[in-house]
């Protein structure tokens, strides 16, 4: 009974915060509500015994992706009135996309897409172990493939943003460490009674 209570709590808050993500006037609020929605999704994962997925959701989406998201949204100079102006223009398109998603979900739920399977019974073995057991054996090839796709995306992002600018001085620590006193220091004997600068200027003039 208490599980049902928590299910409706998590699911209710998640739906409400998802609506707030779309409805909020301030984009920073939208991101904060998105984070709340992620949290409640993690709560739902815990309820079905998928604690590993729940933690992964929090670590990856809340702890890393949403931080960067918030970072970007806060930095943007957004005109709230201008954002509202486009609302009616995008409404039909949004409704179409939403309708298709609802249709697909209904088909999946009542159709045969899940093959009549229910969530597997939670076993004695921790689901981290279970997941690792299939991920690195049965699906090792797909796992590597996913890794490669991420690598390509990463290289793409870096090559898009990396640019060489002239006139920027960078600290190269290896170079600094490689400097030896013999290369950069010169000991000059200064005879007493003469001007010390003479030795230097004389050299430069030659």
């Amino acid at each position, binding site marked *: 009974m208490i599980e049902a209570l928590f299910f409706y709590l998590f699911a209710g808050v998640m739906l409400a915060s998802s609506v707030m993500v779309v409805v909020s006037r301030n984009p920073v609020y939208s991101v904060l509500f998105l984070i709340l929605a992620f949290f409640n999704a993690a709560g739902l994962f815990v309820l079905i015994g998928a604690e590993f997925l729940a933690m992964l959701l*929090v670590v990856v989406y809340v702890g890393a992706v949403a931080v960067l998201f918030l970072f970007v949204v806060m930095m943007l100079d957004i005109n709230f009135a201008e954002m509202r102006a486009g609302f009616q223009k995008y409404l039909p398109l949004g409704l179409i996309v939403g309708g298709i998603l609802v249709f697909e979900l209904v088909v999946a739920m009542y159709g045969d897409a899940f093959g009549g399977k229910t969530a597997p019974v939670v076993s004695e073995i921790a689901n981290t172990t279970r997941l690792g057991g299939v991920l690195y054996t049965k699906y090792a090839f797909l796992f590597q493939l996913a890794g490669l796709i991420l690598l390509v995306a990463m290289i793409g992002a870096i090559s898009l943003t990396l640019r060489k600018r002239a006139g920027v001085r960078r600290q190269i620590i290896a170079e600094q460490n490689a400097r030896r006193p013999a290369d950069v220091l010169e000991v000059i004997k200064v005879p007493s009674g003469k001007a010390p600068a003479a030795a230097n200027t004389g050299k430069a003039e030659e």
Partner: protein
Amino acid sequence: MMDFLTHEWAVELGWILLQILFVIGPLLIAVAYLTLAERRVIGFMQLRKGPNVVGPFGMFQPFADALKLMAKETILPAGANKVVFLFAPMLTFILSLVAWAVIPFGEGLVIADINVGILYLFAVSSLGVYGVIMAGWASNSKYAFLGALRSAAQMVSYEVSMGLVIINVLLCAGSLNLSAIVEAQRDMWFALPLLPMFVVFFISTLAETNRAPFDLPEGESELVAGYFVEYSSMSFALFFLGEYANMILMSSMTVILFLGGWLPPLDIWPLNMIPGPLWFILKIMLVLFVFLWVRATTPRYRYDQLMRLGWKIFLPFSLIYVVLTAGYLLVSGNLPDVSLG
């Protein structure tokens, strides 16, 4: 609806609340005395005395400070976003406390002995950045905002190498459960075979808790006080408490992962007479002392140096070490035995 309030649910709930009280109470006192210890220890390192007037050895100084903070006026800046402004310190404080649910103080002495304990700790510690970034944004002040941006970038950067270091430990322990990780160190603490990772992890925790030499988010010489410039009174105190509770949390994480948790250094007579929780606390105090020691001795990093250290040195180094550890464990046949379903 009413039946679970009167039946065993109520007893269970009461028992859990009591356990929470037993962890949070001493923790808050520890936080109070950590602030005192910090000022006294750094004082002695710099040939000063530190606060020594209020009570014997200045023992009542933290309480005097707390009273002072409570008596001050809570100022809400006119341009601030009130809801987020007030929520940020609460979030920081709450996050620094919830993580203690999975910390094992001794054999079986843990509130929630969950299977994914280390991931839970990692998740909660990665959320700490939200308090900072929300405070910086809601203050509507450029210094606070710059401090928050620095902090966000810093925490995200060092989390990556921290995650890889944790993978090293997990490879050796074969479990995500914190009690199991401690038990796996019965023969040898992981600090010995994984010494380089221990150092990387400790430095990353310094960056994660915004401590010197990585205290750029609150670099007072350039950003006044960083993300909490606009805070006063209890809202400031909550940030302060959260930060110090986080320091203790990170130290306990270091102890659990590398210094054998509640286990004595050697399983011989006078050492194994001391109860486990006491060992745990002693080790945490040792790590905390190093935190203070580092603060007293190192100058602050420059921002680009900080980023270079995180991304160009720690990340590749810990990644290579994961491969090395995995390779060694595989070749020597020491991979922990994990039964697959």
